[in-house]
């Protein structure tokens, strides 16, 4: 940036921010974040500065700033980045982490009515049979964590992980449960976890989106783009899907016949004419637009560079099991590392195909499920090892899990003998794990009963998980709020407890 440009940028910032400087100079800690959002409301409603961001006008205040400029959270964070590995469809905890030898003994027995009363199932009807673990388990590392042999690579990094064995949720269908996991509410329309994070923190790297979404598997997440949408937050905070085929970000490539030089000349012309326009009208919004066009131009270079895993050395491809140009979960894991390395705040992966009902081969615990394990095991392990090697694991929080768990009972939809084995949706108990980002290493929190059906200790609700993730990013989850339809909304709705027991 030359001196002229720098001066112009400064002027732009000054002009667009002047109106809101008062709230900005206070910094963004605690109540000041609220005043950033509520700023304009105070002036007209007469509420004092101690109030809790009540006005709906606050939005104007927010947008007076560059909404993606980096800003500090409420308190010193333990994690600067989050990589959330979502296994869409909900993997079975009973075949991966929650080892239940007694369930093996009960295999094939008819489930007693006492276990069925008052439960809601998506598909199980009548009285199903119990289903023993469809995996061989062993204890791993110094922590002795149980991980099944379906995940041989992950077994080698067991001591990096904190398991949450008694997760529970309120929803037993995929879309509402994914929405609850990401937006704190089972219905559509609320902002997602990544959007809240970028709303609170801004973006470290202005040449890349702050919140990136990477999809693999046969379909997108069940609730569609809403699980990474911005809900009622400004759309600037929504997750940007980066893709391995086609444009890595929609509309990133110049049209055919437009060279980089031509694009450069065109952006220069746009900036020059917009600058004249600014001099005539003095509308500060024009300066923001000039900056955004120049940023878009830089993004056109920065995003393909970040997304080009071909540049990685052979040993990295070996470790992750990656092949450039494919749409794969492994590629997305490697991309996650590259993005975090470049300052992206929140990287959200979805890998579809874990819905192991056993109604067909692709969704059977003894077939498709094993494929999903193979597709993910090596890459996830490589991601942990690679981040650690680069010193990035300590400020990157990795979260792994599905939207709920699966029943200890066999689901047999057709009622006939079939070669495929599966389990139904189960919202009362499932396993998730975390690594890095200020959580304990080699630790297990929570326990389920002897068949893995209900938590017996250390229950963690989805809102607790969200509160904990926000805590690691430096936020009091009750204070990261946005006014909408007459009240302040937050990710954790009216719940959420930070799981202090797992913090390092």
């Amino acid at each position, binding site marked *: 940036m030359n001196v002229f440009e720098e001066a112009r940028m400064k002027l732009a910032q000054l002009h667009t921010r002047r109106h809101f400087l008062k709230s900005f100079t206070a910094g963004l800690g605690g109540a000041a974040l609220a005043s950033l959002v509520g700023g304009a*409301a105070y002036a007209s409603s007469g509420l004092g500065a101690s109030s809790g961001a009540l006005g*709906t006008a606050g939005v104007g205040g927010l947008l007076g700033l560059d909404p993606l400029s980096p800003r500090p959270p409420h308190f010193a964070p333990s994690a600067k980045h989050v990589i959330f590995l979502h296994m869409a469809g909900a993997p079975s905890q009973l075949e991966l982490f929650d080892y239940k030898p007694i369930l093996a003994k009960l295999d094939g027995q008819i489930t007693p009515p006492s276990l069925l009363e008052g439960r809601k199932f998506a598909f199980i009807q009548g009285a199903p049979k119990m289903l023993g673990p469809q995996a061989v388990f062993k204890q791993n590392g110094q922590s002795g964590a149980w991980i099944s042999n379906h995940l041989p690579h992950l077994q080698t990094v067991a001591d990096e992980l904190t398991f949450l064995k008694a997760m529970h949720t309120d929803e037993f269908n995929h879309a509402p449960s994914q929405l609850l996991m990401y937006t704190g509410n089972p219905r559509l329309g609320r902002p997602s976890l990544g959007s809240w994070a970028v709303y609170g923190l801004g973006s470290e790297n202005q040449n890349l989106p702050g919140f990136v979404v990477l999809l693999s598997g046969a*379909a997108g997440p069940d609730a*569609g*783009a*809403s699980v990474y949408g911005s809900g009622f937050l400004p759309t600037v905070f*929504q997750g940007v899907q980066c893709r391995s085929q086609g444009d890595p970000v929609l*509309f990133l490539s110049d049209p055919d016949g437009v060279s980089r030089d031509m694009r450069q000349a065109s952006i220069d012309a746009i900036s020059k004419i917009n600058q004249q326009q600014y001099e005539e009208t*003095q509308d500060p*919004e024009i300066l923001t637009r000039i900056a955004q066009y120049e940023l878009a131009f830089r993004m056109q270079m920065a995003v393909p560079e970040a997304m080009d895993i071909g540049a990685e050395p052979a040993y990295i491809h070996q470790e992750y099991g990656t092949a450039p140009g494919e749409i794969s979960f492994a590629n997305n894991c490697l991309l996650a590392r590259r993005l975090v390395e470049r300052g992206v705040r929140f990287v959200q992966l979805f890998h579809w195909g874990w819905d192991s009902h056993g109604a067909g081969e692709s969704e059977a615990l003894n077939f498709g499920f094993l494929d999903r394990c193979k597709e993910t095991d090596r890459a996830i392990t490589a991601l942990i090892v690679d981040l650690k090697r680069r010193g990035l694991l300590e400020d990157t929080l990795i979260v792994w899990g599905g939207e709920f768990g699966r029943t200890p009972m066999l689901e047999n939809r057709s009622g006939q003998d079939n070669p495929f084995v599966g389990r139904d949706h189960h919202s009362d108990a499932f396993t998730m794990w975390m690594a890095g980002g200020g959580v304990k290493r080699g630790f297990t929190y929570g326990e389920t009963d002897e068949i893995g059906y209900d938590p017996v200790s250390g229950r963690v609700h989805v809102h607790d998980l969200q509160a904990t993730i926000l805590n690691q990013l430096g936020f009091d989850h009750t204070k990261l709020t946005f006014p909408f339809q007459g009240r302040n909304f937050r990710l954790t709705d009216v719940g959420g407890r930070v799981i202090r027991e797992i913090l390092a």
Partner: protein
Amino acid sequence: MGMRHSITIVLVVVLLAGCGPAKVDFNTEIRPILNDRCVTCHGGVKTNADLNLQFRELALLGGESGNPAIVPGDADGSELIRRITHANVSDRMPKDEAPLTELQIQKLRDWIDQGAEWGTHWAYVTPVKSSPPVENPWIRSPIDSFVLEVLQENGLEPAPEANCNVLARRLSLDLTGLPATFDQATKLCETGNYEALVDELLASPRFGERWAALWLDLARYADSKGYEADRERSIWRYRDWLMDAFNRDLPFDQFTIEQLAGDLLPNPTTEQLIATAFNRNTMTNEEGGTDDEEHRFASIVDRVNTTWEVFQGVTMRCVQCHGHPYDPFVQDDFYGSFAVFNNTADWDQAHEEPVLREFEAAHQAKGRELLGKLDAITAAIRDSITSPTMSKVWESWESKLEDPLEVGKLLNTSKNEIRRIAAKPKADRSSYEIAFIQNRFGDAEPTLVGLREERGKIMGEIGKLTPTITPVMKELPTSERRVTRRRERGSFLSPAEAVEPAVPKVLTPLPAGEPANRLSFAKWLVSDENPLTARVTVNRFWEQLFGLGIVESSDDFGTIGIAPTHPELLDWLAVHFQRDLAWSQKGILKEMVLSATYRQASVVTPLKLEKDSRNQLYSRGPRFRLSAEQLRDQALAVSGLLSKKLHGPSVMPSQPAGVWKNPYNGQQWVLAEGEDRYRRAIYTYWRRTNPYPAMAMFDAPSREFCISRRIRTNTPLQALVTLNDPAFWEAAEGLAAKMKASGGSTGDQIKVGYRMALARDPSPETLTTLIQLAKDSSLPVVANTILNLDEYLTKE
């Protein structure tokens, strides 16, 4: 009120400080203190210590201490004052928080000593029309007088009138959503007949397309049902109804009545039935294992919330679970409205019945005949179920419902409701519940299989005639009415006492002597006594033209919404709209665009940036980025690609591959053929879980719920859309082709392109820059550049 009044108040306080306390105004001075510091714990959500400070009678009553919180005329004897000034920190209110300031305490004291009068919030008082306050040659409309008064008070002058070319473009974008042509602008410059252009644009069919777009966000219109599978819904006839309603200037009272209750009008027309699809835009859940009644409940909640937000600017959503935290609405008020909407026949079914079926001319006779047969067979099934012989079979069926295997045979998504009803003694069941459980029995009873197959066959034949389907409102017959119950904490699973249809007690009641239903509710909304409908509506129009509403929180006219910047102007507009113009939407828009306020140049000065940075005083003309829809439409119009086709099913213009990737839904994005690829944005297929990228990036919502205002953003991803999206690039190529075809020098061609885009000539500097660019690149790149200039993306 806002800043102007608070300044006045401060002055008054200072002036009177020496001669006894000034009269304290509850609304501007006391309520903000209560809202900010008290009612969180002593109000609609919580009433700690049994104290509620939201209503005067409750506050005078006091809480569990037994002492009245407020004794009018006696601050020292009021428990409230005692507690906020308590020397013991642990007894001092607000509990565990910073104390009130001395000024706040003094205000409260003075107010109590003066009698502790409770003012009604301005928005719940019927507006009156005040006389325009000032006179000045600048004034063209009473609007200007109200605006000028505030400008003068703030030491500001209006901006000069905008240049005629700029004005023509502004006006055309505002009224039709499309830019003015160079010819239109030239004509305005030559004749100076501004009003003629206004009339021409108001009469254009494009007017309805532009204004329906605003209403689609409010109505949460989409071409899909929402939730997981998010399958297709056919409801585009409602969008067309909206466009037509705007084009024929359907008065807003009738516009309201038809959308909320068109089906209840005497002999409703097809159009009036289609209008009721407004509240059929709620989502429908098709997932396995869900509870239909729960999701039906959710849609009624949404209808209540949406109706109150759209027509009244009231945030009723809070009141589903508890009293409103700030505004004078109690939980019963929510369920009073719920009861108004709770007796329609839809119940969260994939088929979305009741639906309107419209047959094309050739099939009408046959279609009518089949619909007659369908009614007959439905009645026959109903008769069979309710016959005396069948009632025994039904009862034995019902007694087996606790058996899990028997339940397994029921329709998965209705079994919970069936079991809930079956668990009730027969005498406690509502007539709806009795009919519901009979009908589900009818779905399962083996001896009725013949009749069911017959019905299926008729449905199949109707389907073959491919009628256009639109979900509509249909009231349940009196023999099948639901009973509405308040829900503890708003939970669907916690029904409490029965509630009758009603409107909130703080507002005037529904007219006596008429049935309390959707129709009387809709008429009440547009009655002379309703203080909100006209204000909320004129404010939306104003917001569209000027960028911000006179009440900036256009979704919330309540006590924590933002007070109007120009209260007298708002009320003048509301009364003018409602009375003088008899609710003419074109009329009120015309009044606004004819004003001198609207016609100002959008030029900022340092003084104006300092005193009026967001143009809330209207010290200059509006200047802000176009909406997602306007951007698409403008690109198509300027490049000559735009299809002028009105009406019809939604279409799929160019969209990158891989955007639609939903599980359990095989529907594909199929690129439209021919002119359908170049239709206005309002016709673009709207799927809730996968919004059209170019629109979503420009702040279009996904429309699961009512959105009153889009928050404008300015991001680099937006630049990528207008620079590179193939749909926008195609527009640039189209414009380049026209530039080239115009012949002449490069400079001449660029001038032509610039005129097409902006309805005026480029400045010499701009022309020079673009000519240089043409040398460095190509004509399509130059066109693409023009279509990315700030002035082009902006309404100025």
